[in-house]
C-alpha cells in the first residue's frame, strides 16, 4: 500500500454499521453477527420495521441497552443485553437453526477475514493463531437469502481482505452478496466484483489499489452517505 493511502481517513465501526443498516428493507428478518454487524441494530433507517434474529433463540428484539442496564436473560449473540420489544419471541437452538438453515432469514450480516472474488467467505479461523470458532457462521452463510459482510478493507498490515482466492479456510463458498468496508461498498455479482460506493475522500482507483481482484467500477459509483 502506498504511504499516501495508509494515512487516509477511514470510516469507523459505527459508520460501517450505519451503512450496513441502510440495506435493511421494511419487514426484513435480519441476523447480525458478533462485532460490527451487531452494532447495526441501533441504526435501522427511520420509518422501517425490521425483525432481528439472533442464533441464541430470539426474534424481534430491540436496540442494545446501556451496559449494566439490561436483563442478562435477554442478550444478542455477542452477549450484549438488548431491549425487550413487542412481538419478540424466544425458542430453543434447534428451532433457531431451523430458521437459519431453512432459508427463513432475509439478510445475514457478519464479519470476515477474507472474501474472494466469487463471494467465498473466510471468517472462522483466526489467521495469526491457527485456531478458530465456527459457531453459527457456517449455518448462516449457507442459509441466509442475502449475506452482507462488514469488515475492514485491509488487514492491519495493509493487505487486501478482498482477494482473488481465499488463503484462509473457508466458512462457505460463493455465499457473500455485498461487502461493506471502512472505505467502500462492493457487490459480488456474476460479472465479478462491482464497486458501488466509496468513503468520503476516496477515489475508486484508490479503493482498487487496496483490493485484490480487479473490480468493475459501477457507472453510478458514489460516495457513501453517512447519515
Amino acid at each position, binding site marked *: 500500500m502506498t504511504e499516501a493511502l495508509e494515512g487516509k481517513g477511514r470510516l469507523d465501526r459505527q459508520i460501517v454499521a450505519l451503512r450496513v443498516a441502510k440495506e435493511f428493507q421494511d419487514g426484513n428478518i435480519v441476523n447480525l453477527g458478533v462485532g460490527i454487524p451487531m*452494532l447495526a441494530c441501533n*441504526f435501522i433507517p427511520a420509518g422501517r420495521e425490521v425483525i432481528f434474529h*439472533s442464533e*441464541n433463540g430470539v426474534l424481534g428484539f430491540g436496540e442494545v441497552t446501556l451496559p449494566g442496564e439490561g436483563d*442478562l436473560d435477554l442478550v444478542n449473540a455477542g452477549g450484549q443485553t438488548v431491549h425487550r420489544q413487542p412481538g419478540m419471541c424466544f*425458542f430453543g437452538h*434447534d428451532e433457531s437453526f431451523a430458521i437459519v438453515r431453512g432459508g427463513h432469514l432475509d439478510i445475514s450480516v457478519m464479519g470476515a477475514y477474507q472474501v474472494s472474488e466469487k463471494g467465498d467467505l473466510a471468517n472462522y479461523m483466526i489467521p495469526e493463531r491457527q485456531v478458530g*470458532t465456527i459457531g453459527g457462521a457456517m449455518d448462516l452463510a449457507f442459509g441466509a437469502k442475502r449475506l452482507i459482510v462488514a469488515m475492514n478493507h485491509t488487514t492491519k498490515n495493509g493487505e487486501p481482505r478482498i482477494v482473488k482466492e481465499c488463503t484462509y479456510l473457508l466458512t*462457505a463458498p460463493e455465499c457473500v452478496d455485498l461487502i461493506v468496508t471502512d472505505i467502500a461498498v462492493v457487490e459480488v455479482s456474476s460479472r465479478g466484483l462491482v464497486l458501488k460506493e466509496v468513503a468520503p475522500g476516496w477515489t475508486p482507483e484508490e479503493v482498487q489499489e487496496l483490493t485484490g481482484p480487479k473490480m468493475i467500477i459501477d457507472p453510478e459509483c458514489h460516495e457513501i452517505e453517512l447519515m
Partner: protein
Amino acid sequence: MPINKIVDSFDEAVADIEDGAVILVGGFGTVVSAPSCLLEAVYRKGVKNLTTVSNTSGFGADVWRMQGAPFPEDMDILVRNERIKRAIVSAPVSALYVNNFEKLLRAGKVEIEMVPQGTLAERVRAAKAGLGGVYVPTGIGTVVEKGKEKKVIDGREYLLELPIKGDFALIHAHKGDRWGNLVYRGTSRTFNPTMAGAARVTIAEVDEIVELGELDPEAIVTPGVYVDRVVARPKVAPAQEAEITDAQALESAAKTRTEVEETIRRAKERGLRHD
C-alpha cells in the same frame, strides 16, 4: 406413588456420572444460560476423561463475577481443571483473547471436534428424536465435509450428520416441577431444551421448583418426559470470591462496553434511538 424427580442436592444429582462419560451441557455461552451448579458438582466429583458437547468452552468465572453473576461457573471449570478428553463444540475459542481451552488445545491436552452450531443442535435433536442421521447443507465445500458421506438430493449437495447422544445432559431452566416439566427465561433457553432428552439421563438445574400445575400447559417448553432429575439452586447466592484474575478476558469485556456506549451516542445523534 406420586412421581417425584426432584433431587435435594447437586452432588446427589450427578452422583452416577463416571469417568469417561459423554456429557451434553446446555446453554449458549452466557453464564446465566449454563447449568453452573451442576458443572461445579461434576468438577467436585472429580470425574475425568469426559467427552463434553457444548456450544462454547466457557469464559470462566472471573468474567461472570464481574457482571455480578451469583452462580459464575461455566464450561471453563471443566476445561481449566483438565477434566475433558474430547470436546464436541461449536465455538471453542475467542477471537478477542486466548481462553483456557485454546491453551489446552495448543498443549495437546484435549481433542476437539468442531461442529457448526446449527448442525450441533440438529445432531443432538436427532438423538432425542430417534433419527439415524440427517442430511445438512452446512459445511459443503469446507473442512467440515471431511470424512463425511455426501449425497445430492433434489440437485443440492448435503452432508450426512450423525446423532450425538449423551450419557448425561446437564441443563439449566428457570422453573421446573416434580414431573420434570420446564420453562426457561428469555435467551437463556438456547441449547437447554434441545439437549433435554438427548441423553440417557437428563438433569435440570432450575432457579425455582414450583408445584405441579403451576406451569401453564401451553407454555411448558420441555415436557417432563425428557427430564429425569430436577434440582433447585439455593435461594441465597453463594459468597463471591472477590479476586478477578483473568486480565485479558476483562479487558475484552471492557472494550465491548465502551463500544456499545459509543454506538448508542451515535445513534441518538442521528435520531435513530428510541430510548
